[in-house]
């Protein structure tokens, strides 16, 4: 493994290895919750927050629980469980101590449990053998990249509302085409850094 600076990984996760636009992970909420900039920004924040938290937990669980007992093959199921538990815990803490944030994130928090981008980040950091700092940089970068993509898409969709889209392409159809074009545009960043 080439020793990459965590900051390089952070930048790469936002632009060149964007979770949505190069890996196509987390598409369900990406398409469903991208109608308005405000809500998609809220969801993006929640995703970033959960990504940062779960990457730490899953890093510790993987390297200090699974690896010593040769249980790496259990990582899929363990990661899912720890993500679910973490989200649940965070929900309780927010509800009690930061109710404003809780109400702002609202229904998004529980939705994130099943966002594939979260599991994707945990699996990538293990497959690519990242160190702790690299994993953290990768997770936060991926979250911000995901936010960037969904907010950009929401901006485009707000404009699209005024366009006359062919009947059969309304809704998810045109959204997926727009996503494809955005992914093509993001290829332009690929010269900056490469991490995979």
């Amino acid at each position, binding site marked *: 493994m080439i020793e990459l600076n965590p900051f390089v990984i952070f930048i790469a996760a936002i632009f060149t290895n964007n979770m949505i636009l190069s890996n196509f992970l987390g598409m369900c909420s990406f398409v469903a919750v991208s109608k308005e900039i405000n809500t998609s920004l809220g969801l993006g924040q929640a995703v970033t927050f959960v990504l940062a938290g779960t990457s730490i937990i899953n890093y510790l*669980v993987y390297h200090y*629980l699974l690896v010593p007992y040769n249980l790496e093959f259990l990582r899929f199921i363990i990661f899912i*469980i720890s993500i679910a538990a973490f989200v*649940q*815990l965070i929900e*309780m*803490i927010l509800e009690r101590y930061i109710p404003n944030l809780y109400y702002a994130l*609202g*229904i998004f928090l529980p939705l994130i449990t099943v966002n594939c981008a979260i599991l994707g980040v945990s699996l990538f950091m293990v497959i690519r053998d990242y160190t702790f700092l690299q994993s953290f940089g990768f997770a936060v970068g991926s979250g911000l990249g995901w936010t960037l993509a969904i907010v950009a898409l929401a901006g485009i969709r707000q404009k699209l509302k005024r366009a006359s889209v062919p009947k059969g392409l309304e809704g998810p159809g045109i959204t997926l085409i727009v996503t494809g074009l955005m992914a093509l545009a993001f290829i332009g960043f690929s010269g900056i850094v490469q991490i995979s």
Partner: protein
Amino acid sequence: MSSIVISTVSLSIITALFAVLLTIADRTIGNYGQVTMTINDDKQFTVNGGSSLLSTLIEEKIFIPSACGGKGTCGYCKVQVLEGGGPVLATETPFMTEEELADNVRLSCQCKVKQDIRIQIPEELFNVKEFEATVEAIEDLTDVIKKLRFKLPEGEEISFKPGQYVQLKAPLYEGNDEEVYRAYSIASSPLEKEYIELVIGFVPEGIATTYVHHHLEVGDKVTINGPFGDFYYQDNDREMVMVAVGTGVAPILSLLNFMRSKGINRKARFYFGAKTPSDLFMLDYFKELEEDLPDFQFIPCLSRVGEEDEWDGFKGRVNNAIDEMLEEGEGKEAYLCGNEPMIDSVVKSLTEKGMPEELIYYDKF
């Protein structure tokens, strides 16, 4: 072999660890201590905070109508929260009108009790009780409709207005993994306080109707709570126009049973809609009612009769029957129970005959 054991055991341990962690969190972070719940400004309860308003109310034996069991999908459990409810959640807004939002109406299954709370509920909900009733008789009215008679536990009584409904709990059974409550109108007379009769049709893949039609037997215990509803008998002397299709017959039966046992002398016409002669039921019972009540007529209307059926009653839908047979709507009132298209078309026919809309009472299902 050993790897299977190791992975199973370690997976269980890790899952258990998370479960313990969450349980501790629930006991500490999720514990809001004791709070005061004030209902209608005169009743105070000291309750444990942290659970939903709906389950807190059920703990105090106050039953709010709810069909989905608190999952936020039916939108029935609306309660006015005057203080201490927190902001409206995104899971509630789809069920709310603008007036309700302005009136601080909340879905009680979504709104959590975390601090002292002040709520407003209709007085009659205090009358709602939960019963462990026993099935006393099951009678097939048609292939798809059953009439059930339930006996309330010894010493317990239900008081309701004729036309109101109760909720029947469908428990877990093979093929069903969720508990739900479903609403059914009471068919028996309110003067019979120890019994409830329900008329329940079979809906393919319906959770509660499958339970009733395929699992329930005489002697079984069921959970029923009630009464609910603002569709009920109005005490006055106006002529009554009653319209029902299918199992919508239940509240009308309750009205008629009530009028018979009270000896009420009001002119009443009951238009009952069905498709074919085999969909009709309890014809002898309605004959009896016609004899016992001073001025009652049962008018079955069949929409799909052929020559071979030898049907000499009304041919057509109930709204056609009203168009043809009702002379005028003024000075009369109507009780309708059935599906939405039927109610909509009958309301249209009645208003065209001059019946004011506020005198048309209906129960849509």
